[in-house]
Structures are given as C-alpha cells and as structure tokens.
C-alpha cells in the first residue's frame, strides 16, 4: 500500500513554508513522537524565523514525576520484584544522582524490557517466584493495551502480575497549559495516534474552547509539513478549527472499543506531571475491580505528590516556555550520556532531540 508521496511534491510544501513570512506563529507539537520526527527530518532547520515549533507534554517518560521514578527504583530493590518495562523508562533518573533502572539492574535489580504489556504477562507466567510489576506509561494510545493485560491477568488468575499505572490523559494537561496563561501557543499539531483512539472529537476542545487552530497529524515529514501548511492556512483565513490530516487512520469517533476497555479498567485520578505539578483528573488510576493488579495497592506504596525540587527545567520546556538551549545545564551538565532531566533521557524528549540533532 502506498503511503508516502513523491519527494519532489514534498518540496513544494517545504518551499512554501520556508518562504512564509506573513506572521509569527508558535505551534506546539503535543506528541513526543512528533518532536522526534521533526528533529530527525530536520524540519526545524527549514522553518522560517517567524514559525516556531515547541514541544508539548507528550512524551510519557518526560512527564512522569520524579516521585514516581523514585518509588519505582525503591520497588526494584525488593528481591522478589521483577520490573517489566518499555525500553523508554530504563534511563530516567531518580532524584539520587546516577540512579536509574539501568544502573540498578547492573547492580542486580531484575529489570526486563518488553515490547508489549502482554509480554509482561508472559514473564509473570514464566517466573512464578517473582512479583512482576509492569510500568504502565503512556497516554490514550498505550493505556488500552495495559487495560487488556490487566483484564487478561484477572481472567487467567495470574497472581504475580501487577501494573504501576502512570498512564495519563492528554486533554487535562493541554487545558492546564492553556488555562495557566503562562505561555503563548498559537496553534497545535495534535497527536496522531492518541487521536486514533480518541477520534477527532477528542481534540475539538482546542478549537472550540480555546480558539486555537489545530491539526491532527501523522508522523511522516509530509504529514507534519502538511499540518503546518494547514495551520498557516487557518491563520490566513482567520479561522480556528480542528482539522484531520491523518485521515488514513483517524476518524471522527476514534476507536470506541479501545475507549471502552480503557474506561472499564481505569478511572480519572488527580496526578502529578513533571514540571507542571498536580493536574486534577489527569491520571489513570486502576479501578477497584482490578485492585489486585494495582502495584500501588499490592505493595502498599504511599504515593508522594509533593513537588520535588529539581534543577531540571523540563517543566518549563514541556510547557513550551523555554527552549532546551535556554536551560543552563543543557549540553553542559546535562547530556544524553548523563541526563539530568527526563527530557534528555527519552529519545523523544525535547532536550534530547535538540541535543542530538540541532547543536550545529
């Protein structure tokens, strides 16, 4: 199936954007995968001065509070516990310098990288002597998979499996950002895969409630360039609507089965976001029906919601207030080899993307 267009056609869009100088537009790409794709394709290097792309709170690793990381690291020291996690979480630093899952693993903690929540269930079955804890990170795209795993664990009566849910909803975070008024965002590139689950309706609030031109976009360079083009056009036409560029997979209503499974297992709870703080009803807590599979209850973890002091400016970066190079640690004390903040750890973190791809 053909999914990509001819490079020469892409060039026409590039050419237009490059030469667009009519107004300043600050666009937030909400999704970390967009951040990554933008960086890898060099889109920032072809944007005119007046168009800025800023990274939003859409890297699940970056928004995870250091409090949670510390709790996970502590849990990993329990000799009965085997942590199953997406590779993304391995190097996120806790509040003690040098401590992360990778270094603790190298000192003996049991940590396995999985590709799917279902893999964690298999690990639990194959390691009956361990308590397998799956780290549930991600937004509405990832959470339904975790929900399936929890339901399956219950059905199959798997006793040594639980989920440390740090799943989050995108909307409350975007609303919090827009409501705070600390920052100016003129338009949004909306996360294509979250939209696959939530549907176009899931991001309508950006246009309806906040009057921000918004385009749901795929992840190829031509997707993103098209989205930028469409945002410019909205400004040209002086309208603010939600558009769907990612039509090959995103529908109006989204994936209702996935929504239903997610709602069956999770319920909105207040949650803390790195650098943003507590956002009401922004986290996905595991419902009581599935409390046997809730790591927090199983290990009686007293979740800490205090704002931990950190020198990292990720919070401001996630909020679009500053660019990575404006953090005084950037590329000095903080680098992908020795990351201070999560934005430098995740390959889709804004700081990592900037560090790796744009420090000419």
């Amino acid at each position, binding site marked *: 199936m053909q999914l990509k267009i001819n*490079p020469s056609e*892409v*060039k026409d869009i*590039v050419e237009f954007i490059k030469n667009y100088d009519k107004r300043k537009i600050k666009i937030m790409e909400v999704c*970390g*995968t967009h951040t*990554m794709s933008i*960086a*890898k*394709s*060099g*889109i*920032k*290097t*072809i944007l005119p001065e007046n168009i800025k792309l800023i990274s939003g709170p859409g*890297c*699940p*690793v970056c928004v995870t509070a250091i409090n949670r990381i510390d709790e996970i690291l502590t849990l990993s020291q329990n000799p009965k516990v085997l942590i199953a996690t*997406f*590779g*993304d979480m*391995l*190097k996120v630093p806790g509040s003690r310098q040098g401590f992360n899952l990778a270094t603790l693993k190298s000192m003996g903690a049991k940590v396995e*990288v999985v*590709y799917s929540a279902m893999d964690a269930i298999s690990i639990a079955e194959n390691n009956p002597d361990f308590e397998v804890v799956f780290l549930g990170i*991600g937004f509405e795209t*990832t959470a339904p998979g975790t929900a399936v795993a929890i339901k399956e664990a219950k059905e199959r009566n798997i006793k040594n499996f639980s989920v440390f849910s740090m799943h989050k909803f995108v909307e409350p975070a975007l609303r919090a950002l827009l409501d705070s008024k600390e920052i100016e965002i003129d338009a949004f590139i909306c996360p294509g895969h979250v939209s696959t689950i939530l549907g176009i309706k899931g991001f309508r609030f950006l246009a309806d409630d906040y009057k921000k031109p918004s385009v749901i976009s795929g992840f190829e*360079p*031509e997707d993103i*360039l098209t989205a930028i083009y469409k945002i410019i056009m909205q400004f040209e036409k002086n309208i603010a609507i939600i558009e769907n560029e990612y039509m090959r997979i995103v529908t109006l209503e989204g994936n209702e089965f996935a929504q239903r499974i997610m709602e069956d297992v999770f319920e909105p709870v207040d949650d803390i976001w790195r650098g943003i703080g507590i956002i009401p009803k922004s986290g996905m807590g595991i419902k009581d029906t599935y409390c046997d599979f809730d790591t927090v209850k199983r290990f009686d973890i007293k979740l800490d919601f205090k704002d931990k002091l950190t020198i990292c400016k990720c919070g401001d970066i996630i909020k679009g207030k500053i660019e990575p190079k404006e953090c005084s640690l950037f590329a000095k004390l903080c*680098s*992908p*080899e020795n990351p201070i903040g999560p934005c430098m750890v*995740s*390959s*889709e973190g804004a700081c990592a993307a900037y560090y*790796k*791809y*744009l*420090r*000419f």
Partner: protein
Amino acid sequence: MEEIITLDYGSGGKKTSSLIEEILLPKFDNSKLNELMDGAVLKSKGRIAFSTDSFVVSPYFFPGGDIGKLAVCGTVNDLLMCGAIPRYLSLSFIIEEGFKIEHLKKIVNSISETAKECGIEIVTGDTKVVEKGKGDGIYINTSGIGFMEIEGYAKARINDGDVVIVTGNVGDHGVAVMSARNGFFLDTDLKSDCMPLTNLAKTIFKYGREVKIMRDPTRGGLATTLNEFVEGTEFSIELIEKDVPIAQNVFTACEILGIDPLYSANEGKIVLIASKDIAEDLVKDIKNLPEGKNAAIIGKVTSNHKGLVVLKTPIGGSRILNKLTGAQLPRIC
C-alpha cells in the same frame, strides 16, 4: 546424557587436553598449533598489523552466522582495515560450564571454515571454563596479525571535497541479532551480514593512498564510525540520508522497534573516505563484487561544521548525526 562442558575441561589437566586434541586440533590442523606450546613461532615480514576483539554476542547462533564466524571475520576485517593482509589468528574461548559440546563443535567448525575462507592460520589458542552463571554460553577472543600492504590510512589525510563511500546496506547485523535475541518477532528474513571483507578490501587497496581511511562500522554503526573519522579534525561529513543503502526489512524492523539503522552494527561492510577523483571508479569496482553490489557514495567531506557529521534529510532539512549514546533499546515512543 548430552555431552557438556564441565569445570574440569578448564582445569588445565586431562580434560583440557582432550578438548584441545579431540575438538580443536583436528579442525585447525597446522604445524604451529600442533606443537601445543605456550605460543606459536612464526615467520614475520617487515611491518605488521595487530588487532584484538572479544566476542560476546547473544544468541551465539544467529541468522547469517554464529559467534565463531563472527570472531574470525571481526579480527580479519580489523586487520584489513589497517591496510594489512591477515595471516595469523589466536583463538581463546571462555566457556560457561554446561555448554553443549555439540554446540562447541558447530562453532569450531564455523571458525575453521571461515579461517580457511580468509586464508588465515589459527596458530595459538586458549580455553577457559567458568562456572554456571558466570558467562553466557561462550565468549571468544581472537587476536590477529597481518602483513602490511598499504600504510597510512589515517584521519589526518581526510580533506575537504573527499567523498564517503559505503560498500553495501547498513544495519543488518545489529538488527538481525537484536531480533534473534529479544524474541519480539515471530519470524523474519533478517540476516547478519557477517563476512570477511577480504575481497572488498583488496579492491580498495588497489587505489592506494587515494583512499584516506576506512573502517568496518561494527558496534555503534555507520553514524559512530563517521563521527570517529572527523571528530577532532577541521572537517565535517555531510551525509545524504536518501543515498544511504538500507535493506527494506531492516528499515521496517527499525521502525517497529523504534531504533535507528544508522547506529546498528555491521559485520560485513566498509565505510571509507576517498578522494573525489577516483570515487566513481572505486564504487564501480566495488559494485562488481557480489558483496559490493549495493555500494554507494553517501556523502562528502566539507569544512562547514568542524568535527561534526551532518545528515541531509530528503525534505531538505539537516540534522546532526552524533555518536551512539548508550545501547539501542526497543521503544514504544
């Protein structure tokens, strides 16, 4: 019971001898090794190249090869990259107790066949056995000696306007091994490119000092090797993303796992910097070899970004291509 390696095989006594005499010597029959001395006494010639590598690949049997083939190719290729013709190899095993002798025989067999293919003699060796749980089946070290053919490959000779050439698709080995190891895939056609670079290198040797430097981009992949070429120099490399040959299935596997083929290891490729004048001819010559059919000019040396490798993307953007920072891991984000 299936025959397995026990600690006794590493004790230096009778079992060690029987391992050497029954499994190793018959496969590496040559007078230097048969002496079973503390080392081999060899004919040498003028200047020599000397290289070492330990091989710890998991799984030790993987699509396209095994740790034995890899261990021979790895050192043979490093010697070639120095401008030398490989001649002698040492072979040292660290075996975990419980390792199947049948597996050892298979590995030894592939070492022996690869060595023959490379025209290299295995002249001295060693075998250690470590306790269960203190290894990963088998680790192999090979060290090699080659006789110098072309001297002076060095980054100091890189110059503005030179071109970057790769002899084939990049990323195959790393992706094939990662897939075989992590079991995320049910089945693939991915295969390691593990092979001796002898013919490719000999073709390149013909261009003498018109070739400035070459290297086999193993761990860290193409991106890391290119960085090593220019770091600390006055020059940068501009790499044209669309010109870098990557097999479609490698590309897809990388997309699925969220890893980057430019950082994925190669075990049968050369990346080199050559003067522009001979670049086309050299690529043509390389393409005439079956293992060089996907060779391509993938970039050039400039003075624009001192010490950096800059990737030109298909949409006309550019970005820095750093050295690898930390092992590549499958990601969901």
